[in-house]
C-alpha cells in the first residue's frame, strides 16, 4: 500500500494564561495536548484514533486540517509537509483533506438550503462549472447517503440529527477528498440511528477508497470501522496495531483497562469487571516517566523515571510500555 499521510513527532502545545497570583518571571504554563505523535495512513485506509476526553485525539485531527497550529513535527501528505503551509498555500489541499464534525448542525448554515451549502465548495474548488452540473452531483450524493435528492431544497432545521449527519457526510464526500478526518462523527446519535450512519459511512469509504482518520471514544464503534487503531493517552500514542490484534491481544495496560471498562450487554458480567484505580491525569499536570504509571497495576520505578518509546514489534504491533513483552504474553484475550 502507498502511504498517503505520514505524521512524524507531531506536537501541538498551547500556551495558557498565568494562574492568578503567579509572577511575571515564571513561564506561562504549557498544555501539551499532542506531544510527539507519529503514525501513517495508507491510501484507502481507516485509522481509528481512540482515547478518553483530554487525551489529545481531537487536537491531532484539528491540527491536520489546520484548525490548530502545530508546534513541532511533520505531516507529509503527497510529498509536502502540510504543517508549515500558509492558509493560502494550503488552499489547494483543502479539497483533498476534509473534516466531519460531531455536531452536523453546527457545521451547516441554517440560512442556506442544503443545495446552497453543498454547492459552495463545489464552486470554490471548480468541481462544477454550472448550476445543472452542480445540482446533478449534489442530488446523486444525497442519494448515496440515503436521502431523497429533493432534500437539497430544504433547510437544515427540517432534518433530524441522523439526517443532518448524513448531510454532513455528503458535504464532505461530494468533494471527492483523499483523506477525511472524522471527529466523533456518530457520537451524538441514538444507537439505532448511529448504526445507520455508520453503515453509510463505511459503504462510502469502501466504495470511494477515501482514507480516514476516525476519531472516537467509543471502542465498539472503533472496532467496527477501523482497519488499524491507535490508542492515545495524555498526548501520546501508547499502542497502535491492526484492529483485530489490538482488540484480541491488547498489549498496553491502558488499552487493557479501556477494553475491560466497556459495559457489555451481559448481565452475567455484573460485579466481575476488574476493579480500576485512579482517574486520568490532566495534560497540564503530566506525571513523570510513563504518563499512565499512577493508574497502572504494573508500574515500577522504571515507569516513574523513564518515558517508554513506542516500539514496533515484528508483527507491526507497536506499544509504548516498559513491560510490553511480559504483558502481552500474560493477557488472556
Amino acid at each position, binding site marked *: 500500500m502507498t502511504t498517503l499521510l505520514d505524521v512524524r513527532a507531531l506536537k501541538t502545545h498551547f500556551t495558557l494564561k498565568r494562574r492568578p497570583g503567579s509572577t511575571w518571571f515564571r513561564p506561562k504554563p504549557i498544555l501539551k495536548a499532542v506531544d510527539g505523535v507519529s503514525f501513517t495512513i495508507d491510501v484507502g485506509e481507516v485509522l481509528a484514533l481512540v482515547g478518553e476526553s483530554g487525551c489529545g485525539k481531537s487536537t491531532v485531527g484539528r491540527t491536520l486540517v489546520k484548525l490548530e497550529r502545530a508546534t513541532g513535527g511533520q505531516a507529509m501528505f503527497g510529498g509536502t509537509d502540510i504543517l508549515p503551509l500558509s492558509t493560502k498555500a494550503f488552499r489547494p489541499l483543502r479539497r483533498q483533506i476534509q473534516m466531519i464534525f460531531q455536531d452536523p448542525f453546527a457545521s451547516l448554515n441554517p440560512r442556506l438550503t442544503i443545495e446552497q451549502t453543498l454547492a459552495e465548495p463545489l464552486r470554490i474548488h471548480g468541481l462544477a462549472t454550472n448550476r445543472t452540473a452542480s445540482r446533478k452531483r449534489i442530488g446523486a450524493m444525497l442519494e448515496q447517503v440515503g436521502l431523497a435528492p429533493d432534500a437539497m431544497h430544504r433547510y437544515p432545521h427540517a432534518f433530524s440529527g441522523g439526517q443532518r449527519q448524513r448531510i454532513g457526510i455528503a458535504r464532505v464526500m461530494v468533494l471527492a477528498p483523499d483523506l477525511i478526518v472524522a471527529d466523533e462523527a456518530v457520537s451524538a446519535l441514538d*444507537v*439505532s440511528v448511529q448504526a*445507520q450512519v455508520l453503515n453509510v459511512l463505511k459503504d462510502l469509504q469502501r466504495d470511494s477508497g477515501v482514507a480516514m482518520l476516525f476519531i472516537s471514544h467509543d*471502542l*465498539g464503534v*472503533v*472496532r467496527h470501522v477501523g482497519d488499524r487503531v491507535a490508542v492515545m493517552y495524555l498526548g501520546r500514542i501508547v499502542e497502535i496495531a491492526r484492529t483485530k490484534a489490538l482488540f484480541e491481544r491488547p498489549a498496553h495496560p491502558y488499552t487493557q483497562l479501556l477494553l475491560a*471498562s466497556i*459495559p457489555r450487554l451481559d448481565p452475567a458480567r455484573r460485579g466481575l469487571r476488574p476493579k480500576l484505580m485512579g482517574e486520568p491525569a490532566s495534560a497540564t499536570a503530566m506525571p513523570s516517566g510513563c504518563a499512565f504509571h499512577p493508574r497502572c497495576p504494573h508500574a515500577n520505578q522504571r515507569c516513574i523515571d523513564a518515558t517508554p518509546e513506542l516500539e514496533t514489534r515484528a508483527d507491526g504491533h507497536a506499544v509504548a510500555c516498559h513491560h510490553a513483552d511480559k504483558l502481552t504474553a500474560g493477557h488472556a484475550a
Partner: protein
Amino acid sequence: MPLLEVDRLSVAVQSDGLLQPVVREISFTLERGATLGIVGESGCGKSLTSLAIMGLLAGTPVRITGGHIRFDGRDLLALEARERRRLMGAAMAMIFQEPMTSLNPVYRVGDQIIEAIEQHRRCSRRESRERARELLQQVRIPDPAGKLDFYPHQLSGGMRQRVMIAIALASDPALLIADEPTTALDVTVQAQILDLLLELQRDHGMAILLISHDLGVIAETCNRVAVMYRGQIVERASSVALFAMPRHPYTLGLMRSVPNPDVDPDSNLVRDARNEPGRLDAIPGRVPAIDERVDGCAFHPRCSMAEPVCRRDDPAVHDRNGHESRCHFADTLS
C-alpha cells in the same frame, strides 16, 4: 408491598394549547433494595418518567394526565406539594447526567453537602461537617476531609458525580433515581461510578432506578429492565432474561445496532438484514415526532416483522413467566 409502584402513569406536554402524550400508561414496580433500569433512545419518555416520580414537573409545560405513583403504599399524586416534600423529601434522591448543573459553582463542596444534611436533620455544625466527611469517604473520594473545602470546578467530572451521590446519600434515601449518571463520563470513570452505585445499593439496601440510553450500562447494573419506545414500556423482564432472549423486535433491534467490541466485524457474525457482511443490522427509519400519529403498534413503521394487525391494533402486553412484551408476535420471537 413494593417500594415504588408506577401504575398506568401518563404524562403529556402542553404545546400550542394541545396536550401531546409523551408517556402512555406505563406501569412498573421496584422492590426495596432492587435495581431497575429504564432504557430507551432520546424522546422515549424515560427522563420525564423519572421527573414525574420525583415530583419535579411543576413549572414546566409537562403534566401528569393519568395514573398513580405509589411510594411505600402512599399515592404521591394525591399529596399536596408541601406534604409530599415533608413525607418523601428524605426518602427519594436523584442524580443527573451533568453534575456541574446541579452543584453550585460558588459554594464549597462541603457546604453543599452540609446543606443537604441539615435539610433532613437537626445537628450541630461540627456534627454535620463530620457527617459530610463520612459521606465523601463512602463515595470513595480520596482525602475526604481536604476535599470538603474544594469548589466544584477544582474536581474532575467523575469526582463531581461522586459529590452528587454523596449529597443524594445525605438523607439516607430508600430510593435513588439516577438519570444518565455516567453519560458525560469517560468509560474508565463510568465503570468506577457504576461499581460505586452497586456497592451503595448493597451496603445501604437502597433501591436504584437507573435511566440510561446505554444497554451495556443497564445490563451490568440492574436486576430488572424496562425498555421504552415512544412513551410506552414495550418490554419488561429480568436483565438475564431480556438480554438472553429479547421478546420485542425493538429491543432486539437496539441490541443488534450496538457495535460489539468483542466481535470481529469481518467475521460472519456481523451482517445486516439483507445478510451483507460487515454492516450493522440497524433499525430502519427514525422515531416519529411526538405530534405524528401512528396507529396500531407504535413501532410498526420501523419493524421488519410488521403484519397488517400491527398497523391496526395496539398490542396488549404478553406476559410469559414475568417477561412482558408489547408485541403481537412476542411468542414467535423466542
